[in-house]
C-alpha cells in the first residue's frame, strides 16, 4: 500500500506543469474575462459585459467563427481525401514509394512562417509563380488575386495548409493500410470483388480508425492555424481570413482589450472542447467498426 502511494509522486512533475501552464493561466484568463483591462491601467470588473458583447454585439467574432468553419471543412475534406489517395498509392515499401512519402512529408518539417513566406511570394499577383505558370500553360482564365480577393483568400490559405500537412497524414494512413492483413484482399478477390468493392468493403472499414485520427488531428490543427494566416494575410482583406485565433490576438495585442480577448479565448476553448468531444465520440464509434 505504501509503495502504491509513493507511485503517485511520479505524476507530480506532470501535475505541476499542468497546474502552472494550464490550470493557472486558464483560471486567470477566466477571471480576466470578467474585467476591462488595457494591459497597463487598473482592471475594472464588468461582470458578463464581455460575453454579452461577444455573443450579441460583435459581428467580427461571428465572421471569424464562420471563417474558421470554412477553413476547417476545406482542410479536413481535402487533406483527408488527398492523403488517403496518396497513401493507397504508396502503401508498399518500395524504394520509389519511400522516396515519394519522404517528398510529400518534407513540407511538414518547414516552419509555418517559412511556408507562409514561400506561398505569399508564389501567390503574389504581380510577380508570383502561380499566376505566371497558369498563364504559360494557357490557363490565364484561372489566374486570381489569390490572397487579395476576399471571396477566395481563405480557400487559398486552406490549400497551403493542405500542401503543408498532407504528407504527415499520408504516414498515418500508410501505417493503417499496412496493418490490413493481405489475406482479406485475397479472399475478397476470390469472391469476385473488384478494386472499388475491395476498397469499400475491406480497406475503408479497417482504415476508418486512422481516418478518424487524421480528421480529428486536422480539425484541431486547422482551428489553431494562427501562424500561417497571420503571416500570409494578417486576417485581411476585409476580415475575410480572420479566424478566431487571429481575432483574439488582434483584440488583445492591437486593440489592447485584454479582458475581452480573455472572454473570446474562453469561447474559443468551449468551441474546441465541443468539437473534440464530438470527434472523440466518433472515434469510439469507428473503433467499434
Amino acid at each position, binding site marked *: 500500500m505504501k509503495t502504491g*502511494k509513493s507511485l*503517485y*509522486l511520479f505524476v*507530480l512533475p506532470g*501535475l*505541476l506543469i499542468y*497546474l*502552472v501552464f494550464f490550470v*493557472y*493561466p486558464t483560471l486567470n484568463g477566466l477571471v480576466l474575462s470578467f474585467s476591462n*483591462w*488595457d*494591459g*497597463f*491601467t*487598473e*482592471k475594472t470588473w464588468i461582470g458578463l459585459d464581455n460575453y454579452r*458583447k461577444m455573443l450579441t*454585439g*460583435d*459581428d*467580427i467574432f461571428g465572421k471569424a467563427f464562420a471563417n474558421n468553419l470554412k477553413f476547417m471543412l476545406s482542410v479536413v475534406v481535402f487533406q483527408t481525401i488527398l492523403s488517403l489517395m496518396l497513401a493507397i498509392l504508396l502503401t508498399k515499401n518500395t524504394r520509389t514509394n519511400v522516396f515519394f512519402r519522404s517528398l510529400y512529408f518534407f513540407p511538414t518539417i518547414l516552419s509555418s512562417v517559412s511556408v507562409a513566406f514561400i506561398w*505569399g511570394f508564389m*501567390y*503574389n*499577383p*504581380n*510577380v508570383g509563380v502561380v499566376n505566371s505558370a497558369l498563364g504559360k500553360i494557357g490557363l490565364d482564365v484561372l489566374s486570381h*488575386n*489569390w*490572397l*487579395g*480577393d*476576399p*471571396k477566395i483568400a481563405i480557400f487559398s490559405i486552406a490549400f497551403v495548409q493542405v500542401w503543408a500537412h498532407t504528407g504527415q497524414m499520408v504516414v498515418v494512413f500508410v501505417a493503417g493500410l499496412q496493418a490490413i492483413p493481405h489475406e482479406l484482399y485475397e479472399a475478397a478477390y476470390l469472391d469476385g470483388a473488384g478494386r472499388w468493392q475491395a476498397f469499400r468493403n475491406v480497406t475503408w472499414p479497417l482504415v476508418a480508425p486512422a481516418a478518424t485520427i487524421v480528421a480529428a488531428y486536422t480539425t484541431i490543427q486547422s482551428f489553431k492555424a494562427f501562424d500561417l494566416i497571420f503571416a500570409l*494575410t*494578417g486576417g*485581411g*482583406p*476585409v*476580415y475575410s481570413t480572420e479566424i478566431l485565433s487571429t481575432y483574439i490576438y*488582434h*483584440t*488583445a*495585442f*492591437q*486593440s*489592447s482589450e485584454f479582458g475581452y480577448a480573455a472572454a473570446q479565448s474562453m469561447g474559443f476553448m468551449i468551441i474546441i472542447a465541443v468539437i473534440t468531444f464530438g470527434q472523440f465520440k466518433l472515434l469510439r464509434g469507428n473503433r467499434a467498426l
Partner: protein
Amino acid sequence: MKKWFSVTVFTLIAALALAGCGKSDSSDSASVASPSGEASAKSSEDPGKKVKISFVHWRGEDVKVFDELIAEFNKQHPNIEVEQNVLPSEQYLASAQAKLLDGTAGDIFAAFPGAQFETFAKANLYVDLTGSDFVSNYTENLIKAGQKDGKQYALPYQLVYNQPIYNKTIFEKLNLTPPKDWEGFLALCETLKKNGYIPIAFPGADIGPGQFINSMMMNNNTDEDIWDKVETGQAKLTEDWFVKTLSQIKELNDKGYFQPDSLGTSKDIAGSLFAQEKAAMLATGSYMMATNKEQNPNLVQGLLAPITVPADQAVYEGIHTTTFMLGINANSSKQDAARTFLAFLSQKENAEKYANETGQLVTVKDVQYNTPELAESALWTEKHTRFHPRYLITVAAIEKAVTSSIQNVIAGTDPAKAAADAQKVVDQNLKK
C-alpha cells in the same frame, strides 16, 4: 496519508507561487509610477557609477546609425552605456508592455502618436519633460503630438509626410504637374495610364489603405476632431464625406489607376513597381523615398497629395506625422542617464546625422539635409498640412474597420454598403 496530503499541498502552493513569479500586476506597477512623472521620483543613480540604460524602439533599420550615435555619446558620457532593444513595430505595444511597466527595460523608449501614446500616458509611464532645456531644440508646432494635459511627455523625433510619392522624371517627360483638384488628378492618372505607366502603385495588402485614406479624406472633411466624433457617435461613416472618400478610391481602382490586383500587393512589391519606374506614383509616404532611391539611384522623387475637392475648397495641401516619440520611463531607476541620452539625441548635429543617414526628416530645428529626397520633403514644412488623421483614431477596431472599408470598395463593394459595414463595427465599439 498525512505525508501524502502535505506533499500535495506543498506542490500546489509551489505551483501557484511559481506562476505568480511571472505575474506583472498592473496595480503594483502603477503604485511605483510617479503620478506626476517627476524625474526625481525614481532617480537613484550614483554619479560616479557606470550605468546601463535600455533604449526600446521598433526601428531595426536605424540600429546602425544609433550605434554610431551611442559610440559618440559614450565618448562624452563614459559612465553611461546605452543598449538598444528593438521590438517589431506590429507587436510593439504588446512586447513593450511588461518591460516598460516593471522598468527592467525601456529607460528611454519610443512610441507611436495617437492611441499608443495615449495608452502609455494613461498608464503614467512618462516622465514630464516640460521645461527641459533640450525641448527648445525642437520645432514647437511639431512636438504637439507628444503633449497631454499641457505637459510634454514625449518628443516626436521624426517628421513624415504620409502622402503619395511621385516620379518627377516621368511627370516632366509627360509635361505633368501635381494637380490642384480632383478632376485634375483623374486627368493626370489617365495621361499616365495612356502612356503605359501604372498611375498609382497601391500596396493594398498591407499599409496602402491606412496611408492613402489620410490624403483622400483630408479635404473631404476638414474637421480635425472628426475621428473623435466618429468614436463617440457624434458623426457617422455613412455620412457624405466618408462615402465620397470611398467612392473616389473606388473610382481610381475601377478606372485602372491602381495596378491590377492591388489588394494582393504588399508594400515591398508596390515599392519595386515604383522604383523600377513602372508606376508613376506610390501611395505610401516620404519614409519610403530613401529605400526607393537605394533600389534605383536614378530616381528623382517628389511628394504630392490628391486634392479631392475643387481647388478653391481645398484647405490642406498634404498630410504630416510626427512620430518615433521619445520619452523617459517613469518606472525607470535610471531616469537621469536616460534624460542625458535624450538631450544628446536632441542636439542639432546628432539629429542631423540621424536624418541624413536614415533618410528621415526630423523635428529638431535648423537641421541641414544633404540628400535630394530629404531636401524635397523638407519643402513641405512650409506647406499647410494636416496631422495624420488615422492616428487620431484611438480604438483599434474602428481603425481596422476604416481601412477594411477601403479594401472592401476595391474588392467591388458599393461605397455606401462598405461605409455601412464599417459603421456597424464603429457602433459596436463606441467609446463610452
